[in-house]
């Protein structure tokens, strides 16, 4: 695969520490397009070895608006189904430029390891001194060790190390869209984290036309219904929870977008610093990045203040546990005391409904789409590498347009029939 790809798949055996590289063949792209189409195919190929497959969308990291997404595919310990979770913020883009398009991680290490992915090199290193650290400390440590604060870290905390089905793979310090308990898979494989730095380049087959089409899309989006939307409260409002904005406002410091996504879907709140502060804070941990709507809504329903809610979610993030699952179980058991909720983390057990009943993480939920419409839209986002929340909100990103841009970018003839087949394969 010459264009929009690094042309490399890594097969990593944690048991033997063997790392094999394969080329990403054009035929595979013509058949499965990319993203979840290929991660699912790779999962099936190595299914007997309980793999975790990381992959990039065909357009991830490109100029296409919203091209922030990479994906993790594995069998969910929560649901028992082969499922897909989103990698957003800058992690999806970083993987695209790391020199690998897909990575299959199979087997289990006999002692803790971490994977260091950079410039087309995948190194397995000992993680004895990282094991036992919470997500934040592990992220700090690996960035310090490697000497770069831009390294993207997909890691687990104590929850994952203990094999909790509610454990999440975090993105740096923050909660991710992993509602499937994939963090426990990392823990069982003794894989503490994957550190990724992407400084590669992507070739585009027809660069001028590609850029022109992307600019056209961006222009259309600017006059579309997502224009001016910002922050996690806006997402909540689209779900009929408009009053969350006022609830969160006293803590809101700024809104943050994932890579090249026109709508900032994340909100940074200050818990131990003045939210209105404009200059650099000297507080080590001033606040928390809210990346998931669901636990906010649940904990607010329980009557918790925004500050207590955010502190609970910060504790979940450090512990490496899915905030949505924690909120759901707290609601079920009627636990309303913030300290009690935080204290309950080590012993929390499912089942939870926050994993949803689809193959895609229910993390991306905006408005009241028909399940079938939601599923198709998510599939498209996960195949092409689009932010799964933004994709739901932006009808301008039509399937036809995405196929056209993909063909310009790759020089491959990708058809709507192929897309239908891939979606049927994933969701069927």
């Amino acid at each position, binding site marked *: 695969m010459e264009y929009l790809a690094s042309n490399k798949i890594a097969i990593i055996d944690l048991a033997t520490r063997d790392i094999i590289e394969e080329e990403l063949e054009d035929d595979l792209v013509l058949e499965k397009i990319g993203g979840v189409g290929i991660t699912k195919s790779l999962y099936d190929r190595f299914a007997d070895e309980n793999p975790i497959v990381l992959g990039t969308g065909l357009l991830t990291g490109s100029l296409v608006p919203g091209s922030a997404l990479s994906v993790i595919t594995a069998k969910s310990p929560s649901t028992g189904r082969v499922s897909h979770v989103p990698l957003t913020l800058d992690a999806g883009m970083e993987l695209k430029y790391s020199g690998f398009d897909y990575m299959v991680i199979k087997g289990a290490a006999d002692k803790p390891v971490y994977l260091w992915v*950079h*410039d*087309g*090199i995948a*190194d397995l290193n000992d993680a004895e001194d990282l094991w036992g650290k919470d997500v934040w400390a592990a992220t700090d440590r690996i960035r*310090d*060790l*490697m*000497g*770069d*604060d*831009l*390294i993207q870290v997909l890691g687990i905390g104590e929850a994952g190390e203990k094999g909790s089905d509610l454990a999440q793979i975090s993105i740096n310090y923050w909660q991710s869209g992993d509602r499937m308990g994939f963090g426990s898979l990392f823990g069982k494989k003794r894989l503490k984290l994957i550190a990724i*730095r992407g*400084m590669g380049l992507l070739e585009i087959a027809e660069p001028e036309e590609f850029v022109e089409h992307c600019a056209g899309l961006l222009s259309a989006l600017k006059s579309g219904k997502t224009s001016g939307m910002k922050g996690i409260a806006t997402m909540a409002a689209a779900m009929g929870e408009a009053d969350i904005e006022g609830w969160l406002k006293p803590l809101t410091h700024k809104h943050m977008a994932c890579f090249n996504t026109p709508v900032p879907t994340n909100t940074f709140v200050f818990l131990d610093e003045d939210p209105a502060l404009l200059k650099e804070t000297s507080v080590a941990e001033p606040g928390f990045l809210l990346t998931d709507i669901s636990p906010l809504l649940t904990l607010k329903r329980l009557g918790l203040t925004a500050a207590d809610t955010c502190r609970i979610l910060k504790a979940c993030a450090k512990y490496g546990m899915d905030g949505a699952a924690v909120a759901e179980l707290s609601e079920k058991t009627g636990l309303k005391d913030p300290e009690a909720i935080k204290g309950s983390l080590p012993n929390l057990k499912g089942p939870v409904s926050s994993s949803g009943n689809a193959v895609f993480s229910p993390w991306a939920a905006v408005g009241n789409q028909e399940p079938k419409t939601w599923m198709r839209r998510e599939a498209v986002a996960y195949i092409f590498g689009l932010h799964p929340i933004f994709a739901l909100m932006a009808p301008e990103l039509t399937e036809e347009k995405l196929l056209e841009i993909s063909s310009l970018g790759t020089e491959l003839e990708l058809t709507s029939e192929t897309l239908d087949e891939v979606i049927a394969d994933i969701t069927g």
Partner: protein
Amino acid sequence: MLISPGNRGVLASCAVSVMNNNEPCKVREGRRYPRIGIYTGQGASHSWLWFVEVFDRIGFFDIAFLTETHIRGQGLDRCDVLAMSGGDTFAIAKALGPEGADSLTRFITHGGLYIGSCAGAYLPLHSSKEHLNLFNFVPAKIANLTRTLPEPQRLREKFCTAYGCSFIFHPVREAVRVGTNGFPPFKQAPSLNAPLYGGPPMIAGDSAQVLAVYSGFTEKTVFLVDEQLAADTVLGKAAVIRQKMGRGHLHLYGPHFEHPRFTMANQLLADAMLWDLRRDPVQVGDNTSDPVLLSGEDCRNLLRDIKREMSNSRVVAVGLETLPVQWKIGNKVYETAKIREFIEPVWQRIRRLEKLNQLILLPGQASRLLQAASKTTRLLRKIKGDTNRGVDTLPAARNTFEALNLLSTLFLDIYFRTRLNSFPQTHP
């Protein structure tokens, strides 16, 4: 067939014609390519890598990297050309010492060509200062020498250098306009842009031929002093001079004609070099150990190991560029961006060697290279960590630039040896 005035232009044009497609010139039977020594020893800044870039583009692969020890010994004996880059003139002169001065005198008077750029141009100008007075080869005066420093308007740290009881001050930086005299070997371009980073405006004595003068400033020119003073000091002075010495020549460039972004200047530098290339090739054998050929799996593994370490260094170097740190080492100020000036030329060439899938290297060279690369990564990570902790990083920076110099020299020696083997250049 030897190069004669009649056919020099053919090779020069041929050389220049390949500069944009990065493919080496086709070697015609009997055509002589120069054996070029590039000084990388004490006092040399990163700008020796610009010579590397230009010679590589032209397809001159017979390159030797020479330190002061090589020059004091017999390192020049098998060279046609010595390229002396920018850096710290005093440090270079001191390092070469009387033995180095004798070697240079012998080299030039026996037909060798000395190309000096910036510091390399100052070195052979007449001087009464200790160490420098060993190299009084060219009767030209330095026009930017003063006993009373003018008031700098910007870049105070790069504005001047002590020169005994006087100072050399740098009126401007970046691109300046240079007018040629219209005679061979510079007849192809009446005027051109070239970057000035502290090189001399010169007032040539009678025996020196002025090939080009400073004719104006450009919109990119940065004025470090009052514009009128800058004009008075620089304009109309010699920018490039050619001096015959015995059977050989010296070409002294105030501006960096070897800067890779200034292709017209590169072309003139190459033309002039071929014009004054000695007619009789040196007949001294290479007394280094027999090189070994590495191919297949062994070659891939070594390149992967090199790539791993270079990538590790590159990751930290990029991270360091966001920090407001600089160091004064000797008479030169080094910003963090200088680190990648060493790393990128190596990084870009790893891919080319991967495509060739073979390496020609001297015994022990691979392990020395890997040690240097590993040491560089360790030092860069230390600088990053110490900077974050507020610890003085000057000692580590000094060691880092030494390690980077060694690392690039070792790698590029292997690179050119391999390229020379792949595209043989005849030496009748």
